[in-house]
């Protein structure tokens, strides 16, 4: 059906209000069911054996003793997950990551798994599995891995994207380049040039709920999977492909999800649980421990970035260049490429060039983490921008305003921008009281900008109207932070009925068509578009039914404020029919009333934010305290403003943790030393101040209500904003994230000494 997704200005009734979420009561009473809260009769406990080595050839795995242990019902290795990927290299990597085939490629890499009657037996069985490893030299540092002398992680990898095809294999899987203009010419026009190198350490999404699933494979080739995921349809596809099943025979139900942030967009344990269940002939529950979550799931790239920016005395940037090296774990990725695309996206540049290198290391496979790759690039660029402003003698906000991208600017990664929010967020930051608040001793203020693309993708929804006039909305994008409330608001808006009359659920994979996962800040953007489309389709039917009830032509029926209205002088005496009345009569007018929508939500509007923060540094210990934090971000249209604020605050908090304390620490043996919340230090409540938010609404022209994705951009500026604040407070430029107290103190001491 013809759906026009273009923005049209309107006055909202429901959208923009702040009702209580439909899943709220279950979540405050402990009744909501997350990944590990589901059980099946006869269920076994699954556990995974993991490599203690960073890099080792697996010579042999002997599972015979484990198999003989009473209570063990299945033991699997890679042999039980044969390669069915048929030349699909990305799927092969997923398979190999789920269960190591020839080599263990990182500390924590799965090598075998068991299913047993209880946890104790399963744990005992793991100890009885004998793995014969040949330990190989390893490399975990991104710069070290690029050296010619580095141990090779995969000798079939020859760097792609070079002018000349390499003759030797390398840990660099790919080189990519973005930009336009001539940077040599641009730097020639510059009066000031800042050139710096930066490093960021690897972080984890740190969701509080570990990965968990229950798999039940039947001997008739069908299966059920209950799992915490950001995308159950994608999990279904991946699992079905890896196990040689038909996708439609695998029904995946997404549980409530206890945080994902990109980390629950990839399968790890699920194919293993399914393989165990298939072998044991019983349901298998597999829940990762926190240690496993850190060692084997999720992390972002560690990076090494060089930036060079030149500007004229008047504050115009003449050229900008960055070289970005991102770790991918042991499998190819496109993380540096995304970094190269986003690095200078905030600015209007005539001459810009970015080069990305994807680097293999013996660490877990890099996974998406909220605006993946963008925060590190922004850290490097926004630090250099700040320094350049200082050298020119300009206020950092004014300098950014002068160079900010606008509608019509050709972005550094190619496309020409439509209406965008970078300028307005900078102006709002400039005028924010935070900018003028006084600072005390050892305190510094920093600010930075951030960009994220946002994504749309394949989406479908079903909107069913009950005979009592209540509406059930089934969506296929997992609710990670309140989207069921937002989508109910959208349905209420479009149908013209109260929010309370609508119940939104996330449907399983057998109840709805395919949906891409909740990533790229697409959940509310794309599912609201599909909801509007579905509601409009339902309204069309409601109008037809009303016309039938009145016996007038459907073209004479309009839909206003939840009612069918007969328009035209001849029908003046017909009183409006409410949705409830039409629904009540539906059995006699043609049956159930529903609206469906299947679409590709194109035109996700890009998103920009500007953050301001104040930090105090203890110059004797390098300790930091976040005193004040402000987020200004464009939402397009905030459907449920409280949850939009929540996204802004949550992203900022994650960015603060990344900036100050979070990092993967590897020993010389290549083993992760801090796989727990004790030493992987995410911010606690007493670490943070209130996080002030300001929502700007610059409508996205490609969405009926002007909505843009809001979930990810908020993590992009904090690394840089905090680095700028710490640098200002400590009087020394910080170039290594996280800015942990030892690093800050060392920098201060070096500055004093030098």
């Amino acid at each position, binding site marked *: 059906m013809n759906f026009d997704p273009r923005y049209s200005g309107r006055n909202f009734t429901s959208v923009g209000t702040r009702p209580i979420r439909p899943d709220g009561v279950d979540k405050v009473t402990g009744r909501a069911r997350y990944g590990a809260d589901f059980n099946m009769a006869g269920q076994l406990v699954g556990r995974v054996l993991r490599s203690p080595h960073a890099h080792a050839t697996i010579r042999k795995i002997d599972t015979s003793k484990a198999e003989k242990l009473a209570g063990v019902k299945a033991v699997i290795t890679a042999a039980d997950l044969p390669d069915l990927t048929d030349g699909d290299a990305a799927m092969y990597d997923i398979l190999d990551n789920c269960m190591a085939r020839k080599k263990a490629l990182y500390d924590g890499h799965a090598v075998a798994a068991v299913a047993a009657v209880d946890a104790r037996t399963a744990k005992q069985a793991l100890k009885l599995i004998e793995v014969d490893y040949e330990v190989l030299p390893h490399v975990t540092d991104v710069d070290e891995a690029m050296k010619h002398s580095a141990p090779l992680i995969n000798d079939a990898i020859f760097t792609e994207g070079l002018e000349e095809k390499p003759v030797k294999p390398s840990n660099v899987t790919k080189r990519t380049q973005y930009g336009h203009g001539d940077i040599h010419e641009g730097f020639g026009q510059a009066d000031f040039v800042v050139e710096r190198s930066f490093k960021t350490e690897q972080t984890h999404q740190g969701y509080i709920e570990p990965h968990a699933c229950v798999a039940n494979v039947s001997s008739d080739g069908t299966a059920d999977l209950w799992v915490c995921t950001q995308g159950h349809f994608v999990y279904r596809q991946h699992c079905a492909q890896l196990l040689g099943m038909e996708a439609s025979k695998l029904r995946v139900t997404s549980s409530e999800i206890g945080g994902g942030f990109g980390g629950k967009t990839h399968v790890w344990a699920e194919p293993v649980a399914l393989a165990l269940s298939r072998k044991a002939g019983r349901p298998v529950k597999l829940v990762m421990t926190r240690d496993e979550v850190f060692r084997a799931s999720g992390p972002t790239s560690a990076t090494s970035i060089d930036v060079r920016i030149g500007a004229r005395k008047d504050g115009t940037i003449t050229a900008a260049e960055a070289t970005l090296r991102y770790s991918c774990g042991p499998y190819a990725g496109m993380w540096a490429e995304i970094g190269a695309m986003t690095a200078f996206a905030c600015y209007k540049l005539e001459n810009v060039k970015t080069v990305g290198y994807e680097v293999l290391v013996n660490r877990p496979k890099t996974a998406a983490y909220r605006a993946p790759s963008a925060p590190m690039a922004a850290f490097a660029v926004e630090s250099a921008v700040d320094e350049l402003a200082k050298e020119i003698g300009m206020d950092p906000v004014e300098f950014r305003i002068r160079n900010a991208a606008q509608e019509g600017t050709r972005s550094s990664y190619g496309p020409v921008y439509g209406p965008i929010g970078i300028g307005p967020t900078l102006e709002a930051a400039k005028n924010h009281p935070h900018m003028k608040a006084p600072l005390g001793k050892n305190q510094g203020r920093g600010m930075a900008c951030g960009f994220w693309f946002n994504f749309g993708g394949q989406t479908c929804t079903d909107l069913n109207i009950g005979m009592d006039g209540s509406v059930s909305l089934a969506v296929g994008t997992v609710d990670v932070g309140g989207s069921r409330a937002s989508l109910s608001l959208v349905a209420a808006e479009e149908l013209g009925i109260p929010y309370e009359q609508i119940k939104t659920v996330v449907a399983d994979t057998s109840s709805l068509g395919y949906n891409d996962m909740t990533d790229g800040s697409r959940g509310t953007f794309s599912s609201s578009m599909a909801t509007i489309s579905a509601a409009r389709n339902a309204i069309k039917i409601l109008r037809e039914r009303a016309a039938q009830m009145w016996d007038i032509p459907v073209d004479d029926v309009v839909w206003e404020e939840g009612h069918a209205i007969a328009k035209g002088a001849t029908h003046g005496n017909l009183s409006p029919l409410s949705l409830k009345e039409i629904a009540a009569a539906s059995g006699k007018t043609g049956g159930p009333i529903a609206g469906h929508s299947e679409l590709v939500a194109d035109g996700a509007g890009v998103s920009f934010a500007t953050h301001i923060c104040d930090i105090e540094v203890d110059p*004797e210990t390098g300790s930091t305290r976040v005193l004040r934090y402000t987020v200004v971000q464009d939402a397009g249209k905030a459907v449920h403003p409280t949850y939009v604020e929540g996204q802004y605050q949550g992203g900022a908090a994650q960015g603060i943790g990344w900036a100050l*304390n979070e990092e993967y620490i590897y020993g010389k043996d290549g083993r992760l030393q801090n796989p727990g919340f*004790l030493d992987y230090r995410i911010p606690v409540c007493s*670490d943070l101040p209130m996080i002030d938010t300001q929502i700007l609404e610059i409508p996205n022209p490609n969405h009926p209500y002007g909505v843009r994705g809001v979930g990810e951009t908020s993590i992009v500026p904090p690394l840089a904003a905090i680095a700028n604040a710490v640098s200002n407070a400590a009087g020394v430029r910080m170039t290594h994230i996280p800015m942990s107290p030892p690093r800050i103190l*060392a920098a201060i001491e070096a500055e004093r000494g030098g």
Partner: protein
Amino acid sequence: MRYIRPLSIEDAAGLLADSAGTAAILAGGSDLLVRMKGGFIEPDLIVDIKAIDGLGEIRETAEGFSIGAAVPCAVLGENTALQKAWPGVVEAAKLIGSKQVQGRCTIVGNLCNASPAADSVPALVAAGAKAVVVGPRTRRTIAVEAVPTGPGKTSLAKGEIIEAILLDKRLPRSGDAYLRFIPRTEMDIAVVSAGVNLTLDEQGRVKSARLALGAVAPTVVLVEEAAEVLIGSKLDEATLERLAKVCSGACRPIDDKRGTIEFRRKVAGVLARRAATTAYARAGGK
């Protein structure tokens, strides 16, 4: 595996002495259960000492205070007399873990876990605290610093249990303080820590002093030289500078996931200075 909850300390000691395999004492469990979860220990016997009479109490005696082995650290903070007499010890105990852990963890557990970074230990050592050690047929009182012998190791023999920690009566013109450095504001293990206990003479000069550093050596370090620097002073700037230098010098730290050698050395001096200043003020010094 067996779980037993004896009713007397002698029974507990006997169970431990007679156990053939790995035996573990359970009071708060905040270290033991973590080690069990990680598979670092699989005890054959768990002896829960919380039902033993008196072990859950803080008693004020003629000599001072006796803190039972099963007293959760949160209870230390709720005891006004103890808080008033030994604020440094109490603040150290209250820094262990979260509110949740506070309701369970004990200073005896903290001591016997024998981590060089244990929060309560430098404060106890500075305070000159003693441990009452009970075996199946023995009972002895030893200095707290004699208990840990290295990371995860203690001087206790098989079958021995610490029944209580003894703290002296608070002397006039004396005070203690404890400070630790952690990257966050809560929930971390000390990267460096310092406990100080001072007694002043009538002129406000330091008459006696004990200073202990944590997380800078395999066990908590009682820095004798620091006491020498402090004694006779009124904690003037020059004394504090010397104190910091002496304390930095007394460190034998390592580089690890929580901090570097340089960082620990430097910050040990800073914390010693700051803790001494607080203890001095608490002792009434100006």
